[in-house]
């Protein structure tokens, strides 16, 4: 991929391909847990298509965004601890 864009995940800048979903970008960066469950277990994406809500993260301050439906944007800030 010739061009990459920068997103910030939990305060750490990441270079990612511009045509990935946020879920794919997180996976490729080694971030496999997108949230903690009610019982504090690590959870990652399951359905990949917006149904299961396991990949929900905070994007630019907005909680409960499904990473699998979210295209990456230059400058996007992501929090997986929300």
């Amino acid at each position, binding site marked *: 991929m010739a061009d990459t864009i920068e997103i910030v995940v939990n305060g750490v800048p990441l270079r990612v391909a511009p045509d990935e979903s946020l879920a794919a970008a997180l996976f490729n960066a080694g971030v496999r*847990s997108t949230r903690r469950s009610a019982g504090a277990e*690590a959870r*990652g994406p399951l359905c990949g298509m*917006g*149904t*299961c809500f396991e990949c929900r993260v905070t994007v630019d301050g907005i909680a409960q965004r499904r990473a*699998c439906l979210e295209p990456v944007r230059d400058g996007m800030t992501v929090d997986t601890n929300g």
Partner: protein
Amino acid sequence: MVEASGAALHADVAVVGAGPAGIAAAVHAAERGARVVLLDSAPRPGGQIWRHRSPGELPPEAAAWLDRLRRSDVTWLPGSTVVDALADRTLTAERDGRPLTVHWNALVIATGATERFIPFPGWTLPNVFGVGGLQALLKAGVDVRGKRVVIGGSGPLLLPVAAALARAGARIVIVAEQAPAHRVYRFAAGLWRDPGRLLQAGRYRAGFMRAAYRCGIWVARVDSAGSALWVTLTDGRRVWTEPSDLVAVGYGLVPSVALPRLIGCNVIDGRVLVDQSQRTSVPGIYCAGEPTGIAGADAALAEGRVAGLAAAGAEPDGRGPRGAARRFERRLDRAFRLRQELHDLPDPDTIVCRCEDVRLAQIDAGWSARQTKLYTRAGMGPCQGRVCQPALEYLRGMAPDAVRTPVFPASVATLAACGRIPQGDS
């Protein structure tokens, strides 16, 4: 195709879902001169089967349909999750956290299907996905080069996903189909009658020649050991373990019928009842594709076309595509019927409802879906039972509870726009 902004739109035909059925419906209605609005929660049209990052990745027929949509006058609303619809001919969606209302004369529901999961020990671990789930993530850019992958579950989806993963550089450890070989081979032999499907099957075989596609085997559990996963497989007699980086397990597809059930369309055995013109039991509301029964993209295109024409007021021409699609679904059900042993997959302490972390033992065998929600909160989280309800239906015979608005989680502003809760003073 035009993109729209604003909080309220008027349409002759509103189409929910931009997979093959929804695209065919929208294009045919628009080509008849109807004002058409097409909504989908994804950023690009195509649904799951035609999910793509660039059109070049798609088979020619899919690319042609997307091109036809682009050249049409359809108003395309990406990133729009429909949360409510009323028989008074409005629907409410949430887009970028804000409400969007569409007033329509006819509504086409083309919401597709979701994957069926059966809980097993370890299914909640990161790096354990659905089969369709890992396919969707692969299409969205996940890099699987050099990754070991165990694929398990059931249904014709296992093959194309294994092939796509292999093409992308993954090492397929095993493709474990739970159905016995004789049923799967009889189903495959039946594909000779359908040249289009046979062509697809041939491509898939070539793609994962080196991988082991094996019938009568299922994933019993997954355990995490450092960065690797240990996958326990069984054929009911032997039990063995394979190391893997990623695991994908899914047991076929479940029609997505929350929206038609909310509106009050007649739904029987989990499928929306439609006539030869794809009309539901509610006037002005049509349904096409997987919500009427799992039959694949060709049937979805044919049904979408009929629904779009009928919704635009055109006379339906000739017999609808229902018969062939239903026959295919029956063959599919016979070939990939879930074996009895899968009822024993979850342990008592296996999480069934992932949203609320409810374990199987917390749910009494005789409880209804309503009781289960009241006593344990299972089914009340953000996915609203889309994952656990089909699982509990399979494991416990639990019938689904009534659907309530919103059918997806929504902001307070969006709920207010639905008109179902009193608006505040401010």
